């Protein structure tokens, strides 16, 4: 506690020097602005997600949830994927929510499916994709279809191969016997916010650094190169860590890139990027994140490419 106060006072004294250093360097000020952009943009969605996850901690016990969900894992995964449409927001909010919903067996697969589906197919994201690609409804259909496919495949894969002991991060146990619903709510919200926001900082810093370092020519040389385009756009979605409500507009503006790679960009981004990887390792544990994130990346890229080729055609 005294350490925190002293650190803050130290930074306050250094503030002027620090500020001058950042303002003098184009790279530093761009990185600082992009970091602030990603963090400030994510904060309201994170707060919404955390309030929701705290409500879940109070009212949705694993028993109750497994009574609502279909018993069979495949049916539970399908229900969760479609249920993802009910959480309007971008991907930062869905990680803490999924962590609270997570449980043994079918429940775990369903929670992870929900985490992947919610940021990609909720109404806000669908509408922004429609607006960004007027006259190209196949992009919207492709995005929803490929994102649902990714979430369902990953959910089924988890129920087949996933192991709960990879999830090393434990949630604080609700105190039995003492404490009201209100205290449980505050404690859960406090825990989830601190945990998710700390990792959001790491992710936003990584996105800012990469944003400054990715050279312009990467994108300018992708015209007519389908396979290379798919790969580069998938990686770009991971490193840029855009909000899923905004990425459609960025994809729309990359007019020199064919449509299929741009669809890959829209499907991969909400499923996995550097900030989501950081948040997953914070809330679920590193052993989980290093397995789940690369698998998500491969599945999302493949699903988007297949769906894209099927409905948009190879010419793009």
């Amino acid at each position, binding site marked *: 506690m005294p350490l925190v106060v002293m650190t803050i006072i130290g930074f306050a004294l250094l503030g002027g020097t620090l500020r001058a250093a950042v303002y003098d360097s184009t790279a530093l000020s761009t990185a600082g602005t992009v970091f602030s952009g990603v963090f400030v*943009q994510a904060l309201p969605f994170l707060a919404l997600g955390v309030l929701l996850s705290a409500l879940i901690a109070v009212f949705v016990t694993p028993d109750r949830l497994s009574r609502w969900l279909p018993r069979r894992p495949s049916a539970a995964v399908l229900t969760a994927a479609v249920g993802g449409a009910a959480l309007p927001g971008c991907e930062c909010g869905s990680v803490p929510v999924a962590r609270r919903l997570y449980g043994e067996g079918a429940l775990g697969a369903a929670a992870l499916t929900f985490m992947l589906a919610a940021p990609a197919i909720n109404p806000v994201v669908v509408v922004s994709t429609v607006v*960004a690609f007027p006259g190209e409804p196949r992009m919207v259909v492709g995005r929803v279809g490929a994102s649902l496919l990714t979430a369902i495949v990953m959910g089924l894969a988890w129920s087949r191969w996933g192991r709960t002991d990879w999830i090393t991060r*434990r949630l604080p146990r609700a105190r039995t016997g003492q404490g009201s619903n209100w205290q449980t709510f505050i404690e859960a919200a406090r825990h989830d916010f601190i945990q998710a926001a700390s*990792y959001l900082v790491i992710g936003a810093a990584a996105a800012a650094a990469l944003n400054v370092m990715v050279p312009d020519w990467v994108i300018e040389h992708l015209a007519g190169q389908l396979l290379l385009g798919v790969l580069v756009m998938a990686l770009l979605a991971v490193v840029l860590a855009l909000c899923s409500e905004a990425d459609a507009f960025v994809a729309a503006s990359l007019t020199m890139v064919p449509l299929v790679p741009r669809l890959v960009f829209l499907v991969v981004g909400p499923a996995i990027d550097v900030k989501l990887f950081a948040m997953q390792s914070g809330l679920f544990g590193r052993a989980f994140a290093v397995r789940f994130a690369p698998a998500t990346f491969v599945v999302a890229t493949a699903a988007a490419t297949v769906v894209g080729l099927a409905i948009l055609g190879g010419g793009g």
Partner: protein
Amino acid sequence: MSREAENVLLLLVGVATAMITIGGAYTRYVKPSMLPWLAVTAAVVIALALISIATDIRRGSAAEDDHDGHPHHGSVAWMLIVPVVVLIFVTPPALRPQAVTPKVTAVSTEVLRRPFPALPAGRAPEVSIPDVMTRAAQDSAGTLDGRLITVIGFTLPQPGGVDLGRVVLICCAADAQLARVHLGGPAAAELATYPEQTWLTVEGVVLPGAADGDSTSIPTLRVAAATRIEAPANVYA
């Protein structure tokens, strides 16, 4: 890290959010329309921190908490000091145009040409640079044809001329794009001598011919009059 220290950091994150929201610096990072959401978020985070602090004090000793089986977050909560320092003490500036990548137009080509709504009445209505680009490329109603308009942006000297640009935010500073129009006509020659990033209000008429549906062509504005101005409060379009 102790519970009290975490609560203090939580409080500071809320205060930092409140400060950039009230001070207006948030428009450098996100769209102005985020204002109500940021205000609510700041209030929620500050309330969460204050309630946690009050609960711990009322419970007598927070130290007791350290032994009742609560896992602690380790040192990662220290990360929260980064946004506190960046937002309160540094407050990074708005993006400069040379920082904006990819340097492409903010207009989609997958758009069918369609009639746009008429421009506002008046001698020279203000039209944003992205709107000028979209209308020049896609408007089948010709709302820009022969019409005197006012645009606001900063100068971007080019080989053999000068452009007027404006950074466009879609969602936040991570997805910024650069929108631009060429400045043409005799009056543009003087503007080309201004230093880079001089803010201008320019009155002029968009030259016909750019309206071929190809959004990669940048429209040209024939300058009638130009005035140097201070940078606007919200520098993004």
